[in-house]
């Protein structure tokens, strides 16, 4: 192995499984311990109703911490789509806290809506927003949220609010006494207005001294690294209760079940973007990216909480059902019924402010829309990026790339993109090529392009500190690099050795980075080269927790502590911007990222990082991706086959099948593993894997439609069952089956040697049809279905119409003009509905209306295509090749196609009475036209 020597030193200690000791536990984190130690039931924060100021859409009121008389400002806003925003900040901070600028997580300033103040009554201030209500309890501070007068969410119900106000370090001057300290801090504070406050303030100072004597407040050490913490303790946290809810979901990324677990006997779920080598499953450890968005769902309502904070966070979860509640009595205030299930969560962040969006649904799809209205939608990806990606660390040279390309064709296995990992560069200097291996990358790119294929090269954010590396020297000379706590360019270890990192938090740095992707700057690239951002947590091999030290400084003067979880998203954003610039904003970019944050969906795809070639890791792809999809990251995937270790033939085959129905479909492998391009599988497995990949291609029109829907509505392509069957409570904790859109039920086989699979079919009135045989299954049961190695159990819901393309081409970009087949699966009433969405599949023309969207409906033996939208100058060659109607009880005598001009064409058809499948032969109409097909 040629390339390993460099990594050896770094990796030697971490070869076999995750090294938990590299990462903090709650006990090793000062603020985590402090918040976990807050006792419930006695909040000292009290609202000062006399200070209430209200506008049409917002309110502002003072809150006093009666323990130390520190004053805070509570702000409330009514937002579009039924969202409340609640902010709590210090009234007179001695240091301005970091608030994430609009445009980073929030796609825009949220649109406000009228908030109706209902006055104060019994120590409660009531505000109404449409059908929803927020009630502020004055003493102690508590905020209750209601949907149609039903309590669904409550802030500080347990009284765990703890806002560590900014303070001066008690140094030499503290000995001068509290009065002097008061004088010193005078400029920063309003003088107390009332006499009797002085005594309280004296007490406050005493208390402060006591507090400041706690360890970890002004300095923390972990594994020999000292965090200097110049601002001392600045964390914020509070509890959020979900009365009436047994299950909560979201807050990715954790390698855990979809329904979140109680953390009573574990650490809290941690949220701190980290490069975790060979991560373990089913634990609350932090991973590569985080989204502080949680959803609670029950039979009646779905609500969400988005806590906008970029600092390290932890979330405790307790459930009165799971934990035989200790807090259920606290829920009684709203329900008056301790039998009602309740989930209590406790959120705390190391820095920043309390800025909470309460999304009041009430349905699952409302939640998706509400969250998307805040952090943005997933832009419709170019079609080819939804196809199959072939990746490996590493394709060794341009000959290797050509061989893979040709061999895939030889075996008739479609693929659209081949990927190059870090070895393609000269000494891990991104934007360069190893000239001895890729002497003519442009020709290589052209060869791929001739078959409609693309190349993705890796570009990581660490820059090798090499005076001959222009990207680095440029960044250094322009002063674009992240600093260490002393103010010098931060110097850390990553793939190239000693490296520095551009400060992507700054707009001008992101613009500089984006320019690097212009063809004149990225020599040897071409327009069919797209990008992969890895290691952007960022990963720093020789730093605490393998990332930036918390006291590293950004150009703004902010500590990394304040912005850590956003950094990776900004790398992604800048790269996305670079690809946009390259095409002069004409072509849709594709950028894959490992680190992410709320809003990352706007910049492309996310994958679940360095997983393992083991069955358990195949299984966990579903809950991990459901969590990502729930939190807005719709274009997500896991490495097919697993990154580390070599999967056996069965596992690799099953993984290909499972990934057919996961949004981002890429095979990837570690450099130490055996080659595993699908054609290397034994013939039996190769054929199954090839069939699976071809199946993916046949479903591309449906995938594309789902992403269109995602962009329009925020509803994820990959959905939990409860999003379509919200009142079916026995599916709430299921993550072995899921839905694609509203139509396809998927049950991947994730057990070695399995020949059957237990499939839960939701919906008592629903019929599900096997997508291969059209065999019907009735909903409301768990049924064992045959699942030999060649079978991926997937079922189309009766009542849906799924558009597909059955002509398998070698690449998706060669399928643009191919005809459609419509699979019409009838429900119990003989009805079905669906859509067709088509555009040019690669450019932004669709955003200017150059697309067609139709509504398909089947009822009364009539299939109708109604054009909902067709751009003025938009045309497509795509036509209707075939209609398969499933669940038809009789063979129609004749079938007529009626065109927009009312002309009538008789269609040939065939009917299989056993399977009740009717096939309509070659309607030949354009899919973007209006037409009707009548069965007589």
């Amino acid at each position: 192995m040629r390339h390993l020597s460099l990594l050896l030193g770094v990796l030697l200690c971490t070869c076999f499984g995750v090294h938990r000791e590299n990462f903090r536990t709650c006990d090793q984190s000062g603020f985590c311990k402090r918040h976990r130690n807050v006792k419930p039931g006695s909040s000292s924060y009290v609202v000062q109703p006399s200070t209430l100021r209200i506008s049409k859409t917002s309110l502002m009121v003072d809150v006093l911490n009666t323990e130390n008389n520190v004053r805070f400002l509570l702000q409330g806003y009514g937002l579009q789509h039924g969202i409340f925003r609640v902010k709590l900040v210090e009234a007179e901070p001695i240091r301005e806290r970091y608030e994430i600028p609009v445009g980073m997580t929030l796609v825009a300033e949220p649109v406000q809506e009228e908030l109706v103040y209902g006055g104060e009554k019994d120590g409660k201030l009531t505000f109404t927003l449409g059908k929803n209500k927020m009630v502020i309890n004055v003493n102690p501070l508590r905020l209750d949220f209601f949907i149609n007068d039903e309590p669904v969410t409550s802030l500080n119900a347990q009284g765990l609010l703890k806002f560590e106000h900014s303070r001066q370090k008690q140094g030499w001057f503290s000995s001068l006494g509290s009065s002097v300290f008061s004088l010193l801090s005078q400029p920063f504070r309003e003088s107390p207005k009332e006499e009797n406050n002085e005594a309280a303030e004296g007490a406050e100072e005493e208390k402060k001294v006591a507090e400041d004597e706690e360890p970890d407040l002004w300095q923390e050490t972990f594994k020999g690294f000292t965090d200097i913490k110049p601002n001392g303790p600045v964390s914020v946290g509070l509890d959020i209760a979900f009365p009436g809810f047994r299950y909560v979901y979201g807050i990715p990324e954790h390698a855990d079940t979809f329904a979140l677990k109680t953390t009573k006997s574990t650490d809290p779920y941690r949220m701190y973007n980290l490069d975790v080598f060979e991560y373990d499953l089913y634990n609350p450890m932090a991973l590569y990216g985080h989204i502080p968005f949680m959803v609670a769902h029950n039979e009646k309502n779905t609500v969400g909480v988005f806590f906008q904070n970029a600092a390290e966070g932890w979330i405790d979860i307790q459930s009165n059902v799971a934990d035989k509640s200790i807090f259920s009595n606290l829920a009684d205030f709203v329900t008056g019924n301790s039998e009602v299930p309740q989930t209590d969560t406790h959120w705390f962040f190391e820095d920043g402010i309390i800025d909470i969006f309460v999304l009041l649904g009430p349905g699952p799809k409302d939640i998706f829309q509400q969250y998307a209205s805040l952090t943005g939608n997933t832009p419709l990806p170019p079609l080819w990026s939804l196809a199959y990606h072939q990746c490996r660390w590493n394709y060794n040279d341009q000959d290797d790339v050509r061989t893979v390309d040709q061999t895939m064709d030889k075996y008739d296995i479609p693929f659209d993109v081949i990927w190059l990992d870090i070895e393609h560069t000269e000494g891990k200097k991104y934007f360069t090529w190893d000239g001895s291996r890729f002497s003519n990358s442009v020709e290589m790119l052209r060869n791929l392009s001739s078959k409609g294929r693309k190349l993705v090269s890796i570009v990581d954010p660490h820059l090798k500190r090499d005076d001959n590396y222009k990207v680095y020297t440029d960044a250094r000379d322009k002063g674009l690099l992240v600093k260490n706590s002393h103010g010098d360019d931060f110097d850390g270890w990553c793939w190239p050795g000693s490296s520095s990192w551009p400060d992507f938090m700054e707009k001008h740095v992101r613009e500089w980075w984006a320019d690097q992707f212009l063809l004149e700057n990225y020599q040897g690239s071409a327009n069919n080269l797209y990008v992969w951002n890895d290691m952007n947590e960022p990963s720093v091999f020789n730093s605490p927790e393998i990332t930036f030290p918390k006291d590293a400084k950004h150009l703004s003067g902010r500590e990394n502590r304040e912005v850590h979880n956003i950094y990776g998203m900004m790398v992604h954003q800048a790269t996305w911007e670079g690809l946009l610039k390259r095409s002069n904003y004409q072509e849709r970019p594709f950028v894959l990222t490992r680190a992410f944050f709320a809003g990352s969906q706007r910049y492309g795809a996310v994958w679940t990082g360095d997983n393992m070639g083991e069955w358990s890791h195949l299984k966990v792809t579903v809950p991990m991706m459901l969590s990502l999809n729930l939190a807005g990251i719709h274009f997500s995937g896991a490495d097919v086959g697993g990154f580390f270790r070599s999967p056996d033939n069965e596992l690799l085959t099953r993984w290909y099948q499972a990934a057919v129905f996961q949004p981002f479909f890429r095979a990837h492998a570690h450099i130490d593993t055996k080659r595993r391009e699908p054609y290397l599988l034994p013939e039996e497995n190769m054929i199954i894997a090839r069939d699976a990949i071809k199946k993916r291609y046949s479903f591309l029109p449906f995938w594309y439609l789902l992403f269109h829907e995602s962009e329009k509505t925020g509803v994820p392509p990959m959905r939990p069952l409860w999003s379509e069957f919200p009142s079916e409570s026995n599916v709430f904790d299921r993550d072995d089956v899921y839905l694609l859109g509203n139509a396809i039920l998927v049950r991947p086989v994730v057990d070695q040697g399995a020949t059957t699979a237990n499939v839960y079919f939701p919906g008592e009135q629903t019929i599900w049809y096997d997508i291969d045989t059209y065999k019907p299954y009735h909903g409301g049961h768990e049924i064992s279905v045959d699942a030999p190695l060649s079978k991926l159990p997937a079922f189309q819901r009766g009542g849906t119409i799924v558009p597909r393309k059955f002509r398998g081409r070698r690449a998706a970009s060669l399928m643009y003009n191919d005809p459609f087949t419509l699979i019409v699966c009838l429900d119990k009433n003989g009805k079905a509905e669906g859509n067709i969405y088509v555009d040019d599949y690669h450019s932004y023309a669709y955003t200017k209306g150059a697309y067609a969207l139709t509504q398909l409906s089947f009822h009364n033996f009539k299939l109708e295509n109604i054009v909902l939208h067709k751009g003025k100058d938009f045309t497509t060659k795509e036509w209707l090749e075939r209609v398969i109607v499933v669940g038809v009880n009789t063979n129609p005598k004749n079938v007529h196609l009626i065109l927009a001009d009312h002309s009538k064409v008789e269609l040939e058809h065939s009917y299989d009475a056993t399977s009740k499948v009717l096939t309509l032969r070659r309607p030949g109409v354009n899919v973007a036209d209006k037409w009707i097909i009548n069965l007589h």
Partner: protein
Amino acid sequence: MKYIVVLLLALASCHAIDRPRGVSIEKASFYQGGTEFRCFSNGKTIPFDHVNDDYCDCEDGSDEPGTAACSNGLFFCENKSFKGSYIISSRVNDGVCDCCDGSDEYDGSIACENTCEKVFAAIRAQQEAFREKQDAGYKVKLEYIQNGRRLKDEKLARLTELSKDKEFLVLERDTLQAVKEEAEAPEKEAKTKHEQAWEAVKAERKKKVEAEAASVAFAELDANQDSIVDFPEITRHPEFDIDSDGTVSDEEAKEYLEEAEQVDLTTFIEKIWPNIKEIYKPFGTKAEEPPADKVEPPLPEDPADPGKRPNFPPDDIPEGINPDESEDKYDEDNEDDDEEGDEDDLDGEYDIKSSAGSREPPALNDKVPDEDRMPDYDDETKKLIAIADEARKKYDEAENKVKDIDHEINEIKKYLELDLGIEEEFSALKGQCFEYTDREYTYKFCPYEKTSQKPKGGGIETNLGNWGHWHGPEGDKYDSMKYENGQSCWNGPNRSCNVKLHCGAENALTGASEPSRCEYQFEFTTPARCAAPLPAGSHSHHEEL
């Protein structure tokens, strides 16, 4: 994928038969107008106007030879004036020119140049080059075959010869073995006798030494000098404290005296001393402590100190002989005894290691003290030894001849077991090594032995695998060789190497790569892989489109 590119053996020519798009002349008869078309595989009939109507009616795709409608169909590229070829249907009208005549792209979305002339010229040139290579290679191969067969014949002949020789040599060896055994019997008897005598002398000597030691101990134990040791006298010695309770009880003492109240010297020497000599310490020694006391005799570990071993000049201390501690103490304690020992010294011709029947030269050690050496054999015995030595020598010579011949037979058998090709054509590679150098490494291929790599700038050679087996696909076994169990990789498998053999005018290693970690791939050209050129006039059809 056999069906992706099907090679047509018939030359396409311009027949005037009208046939649907994408149909070869061969199959044209299946598409002869009429009103119906019969699907190839299941006989299903469809209206003839459904042929090439861009809708797949036949499961086998036979109704759509000219469109992409059937995912399992084949399209025939006519390549007018050149040889036709098939492509899979999904490559029809996909915007990529696959047929050299561009006939697969007819929907107007892309204009394909007719590149057949260029393509076939290139193919012809390639074929020509290949044929030349093949012709040249094949000539060499014939030599290889000839040499290989001759070599094999020679080996076989030699094997027959050797087998005969061996029979004779084995007989000779067996005879000499009998002679040898006959001569060794009296030799052994004489030597044993001599050695037993010597053992007796040694035993007697030892007994005497023991008795002396016992006497000294007796004298010391006998505190009241009454020539009797009784149990009160034993109790004075703490080392007899069996239960380690700090005192030596009467019971404990008696136990050491074998339940007797008292013993005299004779009984003491015979019965008591053997049991207590390991425990016994001259009075005043602390049993648990190292003998730091100057009253105590020094440990024997310090032979370099001549002052403490007056009777044993340091130069004479035999290396490797570790004198027994108690004996040593005894030596130190009783000078008289030492003197007696001196008197008993025997001549320096004795060898403590010599033993009966040993054919090895005596492990002479000049430093062995004379008294420990066995006396020389008597003349009679020496004579018997000489006779036996002579018989042994002859036997050994015969045995070695058998071994040599066995070795050669094995070598030949090993060679004959090697799979050197159907016609022994790969025999020419055996015993040779070939090298190839790329940017970083020099790779070495020693057929039937091993593969290796070495950094270009010098350094340690890494074994990439030892000869394993032929590894070609079914039907073409000699396409590649597998070398396995090379040096193991850090955190990975043992290195292995696949050597792909191509026809070439000469033997050369032409490429090396590492497609998977620690799994190498070599490319090697050799005349041994060249097939016989086709007879003049015929064309081989290696072109694939």
